[in-house]
């Protein structure tokens, strides 16, 4: 039996060994950067947008002469399918086989919690572009992120709601079964308490639920000024639609977290979502030459409008390329040092890292309001 086992093992290992030789030969003229994104499965939309943003920036950087005096950047994007194990396997492959000095991604905070310890152990710089959960950069000294954590964005939104619309009494809702929504809610609750809101009730639901009538009926009876919601866009759309169906008036605004910041909300919920407020590190109609060019080029390259994930990825690719250049070598330690010194002005506005490897400023955050199924900047 043990012979059988070892035979199977040998076959598996043999076929795995066959692959790695290919990538090393051209590593001399190029700097290889890895990325792990969700390109298939239920959440593929996020990864696809990120891929679009990364590749657009990459084309521009390479066309302008690359890094380190003429070396081009090669980007290897691995698919995680939103699966933690697959993400870790991808990270191990990028680090162990492709020997990349930098990994961009992975897409979800959950994946980062699994991937981070692995890359950090190998001292490979890892830059999250879309991981907004609490504690991401605390995984280790090699873990950075360019996405503003929810705790930086949400207070801006809530404060706007308070100042502009006189919101005082709120109900809070969140999906309690996924890390993204839960951690968004934690930030929201902290911000709401700090701003002195009266929290009438906290209601939860599951990400895959389709019936929210019980929670919403309860909220309806509490006469709140606004409802905060932290979840992915699909359940948010469902909640918003049912709230209006149950007769919660349009004057009771929804205030969304990062998950609500998606054009899909308008597509699905239509007019029911009108009035919803959301804070965003980036907005498609943001003024400025850099952004307008980015939006136009992205649309030309990918055939659709960019979203915040694409924008963050686009900036991140530039930030990483600059750091490689500054470091003077494709060496993880040096790139890490260089990242601390980042001073970049991209589509999201001025950018630098804190000592805790998070974005330093939330100045770029704009508050958007839904109107006729589309987001507009709240003036």
């Amino acid at each position, binding site marked *: *039996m*043990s012979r059988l086992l070892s035979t*199977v*093992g040998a076959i*598996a290992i043999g076929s795995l060994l066959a692959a790695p030789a290919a990538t090393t030969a051209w590593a001399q003229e190029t700097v290889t950067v890895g990325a792990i994104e969700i390109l298939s499965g239920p959440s593929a939309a996020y990864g696809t947008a990120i891929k679009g943003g990364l590749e657009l920036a990459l084309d521009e950087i390479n066309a302008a002469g690359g890094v380190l005096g003429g070396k081009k950047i090669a980007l290897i994007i691995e*698919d995680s*399918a939103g699966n933690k194990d697959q993400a870790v396997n991808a990270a191990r492959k990028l680090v*162990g086989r492709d020997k990349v000095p930098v990994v961009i991604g992975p897409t979800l905070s959950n994946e980062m919690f699994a991937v981070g310890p692995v890359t950090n152990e190998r001292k490979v710089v890892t830059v999250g572009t879309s991981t907004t959960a609490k504690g991401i950069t605390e995984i280790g000294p090699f873990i950075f992120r360019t996405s503003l954590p929810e705790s930086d964005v949400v207070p801006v939104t809530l404060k706007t709601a308070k100042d502009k619309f006189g919101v005082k009494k709120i109900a809070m809702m969140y999906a309690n079964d*996924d890390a993204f929504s839960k951690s968004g809610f934690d930030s929201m609750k902290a911000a709401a308490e700090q701003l002195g809101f009266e929290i009438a009730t906290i209601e939860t639901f599951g990400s895959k639920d389709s019936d929210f009538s019980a929670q919403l009926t309860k909220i309806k009876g509490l006469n709140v000024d606004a409802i905060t919601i932290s979840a992915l866009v699909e359940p948010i759309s469902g909640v918003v639609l049912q709230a209006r169906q149950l007769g919660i008036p349009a004057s009771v605004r929804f205030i969304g977290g990062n998950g609500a910041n998606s054009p899909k909300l308008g597509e699905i919920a239509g007019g029911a979502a009108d009035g919803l407020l959301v804070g965003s590190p980036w907005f498609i109609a943001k003024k400025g030459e850099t952004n307008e060019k980015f939006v136009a080029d992205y649309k030309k390259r990918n055939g659709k409008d960019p979203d915040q994930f694409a924008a963050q990825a686009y900036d991140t690719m530039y930030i990483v390329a600059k750091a490689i250049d500054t470091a003077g070598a494709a060496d993880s330690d040096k790139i890490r040092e260089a990242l601390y010194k980042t001073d970049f002005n991209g589509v999201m506005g001025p950018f630098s890292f804190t000592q805790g490897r998070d974005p330093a400023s939330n100045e770029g955050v704009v508050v958007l309001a839904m109107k006729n199924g589309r987001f507009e900047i709240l003036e």
Partner: protein
Amino acid sequence: MAEWLDDFLFTYENLVHALGVHGLLALSMYCVMAVGQLSLGQAAFMGIGAYTGALLTLNLGLPFWLVLPLSALAPALVALVIGGPTLRLSGVYLAISTIALGEVLRVLYINAEWLTGGALGLSGIPRKADLWLIYLLLLIGVVAFWAVGRSKIGRAMEAMREDEAVAGVMGVNLPRYKLGALIVSSMIAGLAGCLSSHSNSFIGPNEYGFEMAVTILSFALLGGIGTPVAPVIGAIILTALPEVLRPLQDFRLVFNGLIIVIAVLFLPRGVIPFRLRRAP
């Protein structure tokens, strides 16, 4: 160690871990199916082991040699509660209630935030599950099933699988065997869970659900349950194949599902159809 070997092991460490852990899970599935029962709770039992192990390590700082057996004990208690009422009934009741078990536990992990971290799960679990330990346990498991399989217990189990009523007439204490098999299988799954949480550093509440349960079932059905090695080989094939054949990854679940259909309809003995001899 040579650098390339180091890199190689690093690259495939997860896969090699997963092969061992999945082997144990397949063995746990084998244990139930060998007495003709169907449990879809192996993923849930694995989850209990994973959480128990992680919590004992993180909160109490117990040594791993103590954590491991405790992680096997916790799912055994749950198996006792589930198996008690359902094993008296026809087999579908166990299957359904074990599916439900996975769901109940998921809700529990999500809501017992103070303990389990809720949706955020538990992170920073130290990596204590060494490769040799995983494979040693797998080997012990296979050998133990092999040894017990060649005794009156093995004969009783096969008899139950072939014709439960007649096995009863032969004097096999059916409730005791069924419950025993469920408990042993939950313990193996718990061990696998504990080993996986101590090699992954992060666990979350949504990892031990329906899909994982079906995947574990497909291991055993592909390999067959003629001998204890067969399901392990099934697990190795189904774990390694998507890694070798990348395009298969998109269709991973479709593939696992079809494996089950094909195995039940056309390959009821699996790809390793040999049968363990049970008499000298």
